[in-house]
């Protein structure tokens, strides 16, 4: 069994997490991330792993909420937590571009 992730796999995961990794780190994560995956695989070996799914740390079914409005935040408070705003909108660097 291969004991390392490929360099590309590490870079892909880094991209998904939006983090930059240096050359040395890549090598480190190739090993560490693979080790983590191997550990998770061990859990899968438990008897009945696929039989009874547990998605939450307790066994009760979901308690549903009545459709009644509650308190909301003041827009001024909301904007305080944003680095930039434009009028009442939160502003971020442009995320889209197109070509005709």
């Amino acid at each position, binding site marked *: 069994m291969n004991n390392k992730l490929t360099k590309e796999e590490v870079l892909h995961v880094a991209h998904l997490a939006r983090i930059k990794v240096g050359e040395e780190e890549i090598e480190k994560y190739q090993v560490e991330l693979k080790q983590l995956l191997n550990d998770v695989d061990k859990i899968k070996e438990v008897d009945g792993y696929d039989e009874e799914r547990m998605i939450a740390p307790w066994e009760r079914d979901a308690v549903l*909420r009545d459709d009644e409005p509650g308190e909301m935040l003041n827009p001024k408070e909301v904007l305080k937590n944003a680095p930039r705003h434009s009028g009442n909108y939160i502003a971020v660097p442009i995320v889209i571009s197109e070509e005709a």
Partner: protein
Amino acid sequence: MSNYLPTIGIEVHCELKTKTKIFSNSINGYGQMANSLTNVVDLGYPGTLPTLNKEVINLAIKAALVLNCKIRRQMHFDRKNYFYPDNPKNYQITQAETPIGYDGYVEIEVNGKKKKIEIEEMHIEEDTCKSTHRGDKTLLDFNRAGVPLIEIVTKPCMESGEEAKLYLEKLRELLFYSDVSDCKMEEGSMRADANVSIRKQESDPFGTKAEIKNIGSISNVKLSIEKEIERQAQLYDEGKTFPPQTRRFDTKLNDTVLMRVKETGNDYRYFPEPDIPFVYITDEQIDKVKKTIPMLPDARREKYISLGISEVNAKKLVGHRSLSDYLNELLEEKIDFKTAGNLLLGDISAYLNKEEKEMKDTTLTKERFMDLVNKVSDNTLTSKNVKEILDKVMTSEKSIDEITKEAGIQNITDNSAIIEMIKKVMEANPESVTDYKAGKDRAIKYLMGQVMKESKGTLNPKMAMDVLKEELNK
């Protein structure tokens, strides 16, 4: 351009008509000041937890029922992970593994033939915040964040823009009439994406797919699909290939344009949402929801036609929900439905449009409306009379009789009086009488006009015409 077989699948996002959001109790509203309808859950603040809205499940069950879907009895939610400013939690809560509805269909009629548009699945998810792109900035409004959505995904089973249009019209009608959503494409409460590919013949594998995103109207869905088919066909004709892509319909260019989304990565790493345990749906709950579904559009049209309303008018009535709901309250009554339909779609619609009112804003009770219908039906009132008294009919509480009397309308329904008037007109216009007898049909119209003039509009035209013909043929 060579002939190709298009394959089209449609994904629709539809906002549910709840009071509050799906996972928080802030208000689900549209058209309010930006970022004024939010709380800590919608903004994804650390430590907050989602609480699932009961009404969302009920409306989703209802949608599944009207779309003929099977309903899953045990389901959960999943996290769809991605980094993008429209979602500060960095994941959207959706149903990837256990969509509430599956294997459904919507029936449409294409060129007189019925076709079932198959629905692969229908799932519940939260809406993201609304982003608007301005200059070098993207502006975010979190009022939409956490608004409950259902996403309805068809199989790739449509073959033209026209079919896609018919499907969307039918879908909108069903979800609107069942009160699941207000389905306003112009406000974004119903949004459609189309997946389009083409191939030479059915035995070929599917062609490369282009996804056209967020098209703002049903007619533009049709147009954008047609344009996209054309574009792909041209490329294939030139021997070119192209990668799968996301496009957008540009209303100024009337064409699709390539959309470049920075920071892509369709690696969503779905996993079950641990903050919401399993949701169970019981037969009792489904039955309870079933009882809240009003008569649906197809059944309404059928019923109206069976009551003597023309097919055209039946369609028009269903296109105008408040009129259709009004008429539905009278279905057990014995009235002339053809006249009722004509009145609702004619003078009454004109009045409502002019006054910018709905039926509920008028004084036209069921009883007074039926009285009006009967009086028009038995020729006591002419259509001209109706126009004269309609303002009063819609605003006062008085009976139709009283209003008619006050308006000074005294229609002559006495036959001998009509005959007298007609004889007078015939004596004054002997040439026209001779012309009519010589087979000139136009002459009778002239005579009729003279009769109505003589009566100052107090005659019922149909009655007068019958008597006039009788007299002329003597």
